[in-house]
């Protein structure tokens, strides 16, 4: 498939997932701030902004509203929900012939509705906006699932989504690593990831930090766990490789990085997990970044622009 379209699909996957996950994380944080008067809004907001990689303004102190404004509605910086929606839509517009009409109309209608939903949410509370984003992202995933051929295009889309998912879950966990093992903050982590119900059923209601981390990092069955997402990304890359003739080692850098990260988690003793967790998460984050670069180098050959300004016939 066309390299530029492959790149677009990869980024559509990433941006839709990023919009979805940012909405989830923000939703939980905003409601924690509203419900729990003992939480310091400014400190919590700054922590969240640091995790999302958004520059916090110095001086001014944050509250629920300014946090929502910055993370959800602002289109001035790349990390916000609105910016992710715009980028996802822009990428789809440039790759119309490889996404289905349904997928395009889903994203385009989402993009067109943002203004109106934003105005509504400013009056009725931000939850309405987050729900809108989550629902549209779910709709997009469903439409992709039911209208795309399982060809390379699909693999690039899922690859992007999986890579972004690893990144976002890692960021989510990083925002809580400093919490006590019995902190109620761990429930919010589960809720952000949409994992609360599944977790309760899996561990029969027992709530503690090590199990929550274990569930979100290592669970083989839960689709939003880091392990599951890594496996999926790995599978996509394996299928994308059409010349499996290399007999030793991993064929490509991206695959090697993913495989190593996955096996690190796979063969880790569960009770060692909490030791050294921050370092482990940082390493994972670095891996995600490197995978992105390796994928782009392997598949998205970008041409250096050649200037022809002095092309005179001699």
């Amino acid at each position, binding site marked *: 498939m*066309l*390299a530029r379209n492959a790149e677009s699909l990869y980024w559509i996957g990433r941006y839709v997932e990023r919009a979805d996950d940012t909405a989830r994380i923000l939703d939980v944080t905003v409601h924690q701030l509203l419900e729990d008067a003992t939480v310091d809004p400014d400190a919590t907001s700054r922590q969240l902004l640091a995790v999302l990689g958004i520059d916090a303004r110095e001086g001014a102190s944050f509250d629920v509203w300014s946090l929502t404004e910055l993370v959800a509605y602002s289109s001035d910086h790349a990390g916000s929900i609105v910016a992710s929606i715009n980028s996802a839509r822009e990428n789809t517009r440039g790759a*119309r012939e490889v996404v289905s009409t349904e997928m395009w109309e889903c994203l385009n209608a989402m993009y067109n509705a943002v203004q109106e939903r934003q105005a509504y949410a400013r009056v009725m509370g931000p939850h309405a906006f987050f729900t809108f984003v989550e629902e549209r992202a779910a709709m997009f995933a469903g439409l992709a699932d039911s209208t795309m051929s399982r060809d*390379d295009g699909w693999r690039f889309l899922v690859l992007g989504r999986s890579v972004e998912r690893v990144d976002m879950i890692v960021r989510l966990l990083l925002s809580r690593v400093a919490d006590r093992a019995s902190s109620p903050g761990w429930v919010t982590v589960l809720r952000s990831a949409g994992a609360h119900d599944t977790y309760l059923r899996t561990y029969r209601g027992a709530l503690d930090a090590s199990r929550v981390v274990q569930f979100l990092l290592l669970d083989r069955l839960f689709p939003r766990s880091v392990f599951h997402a890594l496996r999926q990304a790995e599978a996509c890359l394996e299928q994308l490789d059409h010349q499996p003739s290399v007999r030793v080692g991993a064929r490509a850098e991206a695959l090697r990085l993913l495989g190593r990260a996955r096996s690190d988690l796979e063969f880790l003793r569960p009770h060692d997990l909490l030791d050294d967790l921050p370092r482990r998460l940082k390493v994972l984050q670095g891996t995600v970044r490197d995978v992105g670069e390796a994928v782009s180098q392997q598949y998205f050959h970008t041409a250096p622009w050649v200037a022809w*300004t002095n*092309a005179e016939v001699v």
Partner: protein
Amino acid sequence: MWTMTRSRARTSGLRRTPARAVARLGELFDGYLDPARPHADAYDEMFGEDASVRAAYRALHDSIAPSQVAELTARAEALDRAFVDQGITFSLSGQERPFPLDLIPRVLTATEWSKLERGIVQRVRALELFLADIYGDAQIVRDGVLPRRLITSCEHFHREATLLKPPNGVRLHVSGVDLVRDESGTFRVLEDNLRCPSGVSYVMENRRTMARVFPDLFARHRVRSVGDYAVHLLRALRNAAAPNAADPNVVVLTPGVANSAYFEHSLLARQMGVELVEGRDLFCRDNVVYLRTTEGERQVDVIYRRIDDDFLDPVHFRPDSVLGVAGLLNAARAGNVVIANAVGNGVADDKLVYTYLPEIVQYYLGEKPLLPNVDTFRCWLPEERAHVLDHLDELVVKPVEGSGGYGIVFGAQASTRELNGLRRTIRANPRGWIAQPVVQLSTVPTKVGDRLAPRHVDLRPFAVNDGNSIFVLPGGLTRVALPEGSLIVNSSQGGGSKDTWVLAARSSTVDRELAEPGLATSAPASPAAEQGPELTTSQQQQQQQQEKGA
């Protein structure tokens, strides 16, 4: 002296509108036939001179006239929403806007259409031969039919393209002929678009959206389909490939997402099932064009480019172009890739060359043009220039290179200062300008506010030449000038569009009625009768080509 005065006299004599006819109209048409309206001189396509409804529009008028304003408004809103959600937009100065589609379709009868179709086919055939000649031996110049200076002074005549012969000889894979209907109802050619004519996506999308919003209207009419355009285009592009390409790899080359017609490029690529590429997705090596894919490179055989010649190849044309592919023209010359439409077609749609079209048709085909041009004064001929300079205040002056409605001056509306400036410009560069009498374009009812008002329209049918026959998409793009009295229909100047209906021949309607339950026992409707005009046209063409080959 020209048509203007003649037709003015005729229409003003007929402007008496019987009062009873006006009273008969529903509230939607309130004031439509007001004799004082600024469009009174124009030919109205729905109402005849005695305010009777013309045959083509009768069924349409009868279904729309009794409807409520609210109903029409609701349908108009549904249309707009559909367009925005589907992202059917064009960008104007960087802003994305929905292309305004008017509710009321424009209707052409089978007879009107078959006349137009024959005229367009004739024109395209003559222009193909003209281009082949100009970029070959230039026999027409040697024979003294056209002055050589006419060709060499044309900005879009590219010597880079001389002796570059496409494998199947086709240069005009797609052409768009802009037609207007003058005060007497005669269709005339206003200009030809032979480089990258655009707008066909709106023809297809208008139809699809109208059918959703007005299902009942379609049930009452037998409208010829426009949905198979992409099939014809793909066939033409595949036929254009060099004969050694067994399964030609066709791509659509677009300038990118920021281009005003991007929606169209992507629609065509999707409907043909081919890649939509930008210049940076392609590269040339050893005179072969390749596509960058995730699995390495793949050779490209045919490029349907929607980029102007100037930007196509930085090696030959504008060196600062970032949209094109370096080396493309050399690859085409080496026969390894086909560029559609061919490079250098602009010489045939130059507005000054246009004035010589009757001579061109006569020279190559030995026929008279079936579709007349609009009368035009050529500023580069001294006596015609003198006339133009004397009558500047009653003429429309156009640059020969202009498109998109830019640079056009209506003498009657210009100030003395502007006219003096224009005189200087014309004297300085007479080759660059032509002048035409004001043609009052025909009008069609158009929704303006909460009623229907006459607005001027033109028509751009699209012709596809696949090397064996020339297919003309039934209908084409009807553009409508939305501001009252405006004669400029370009979308960049506040124009909208209308769905254009070509009604199927009467015989086929009868066939369909006969085939309805109860009468179905009689012989089944003959399929041959339904495609009557289409079949004969292509047969004729093939036969004519056979004769030429023999």
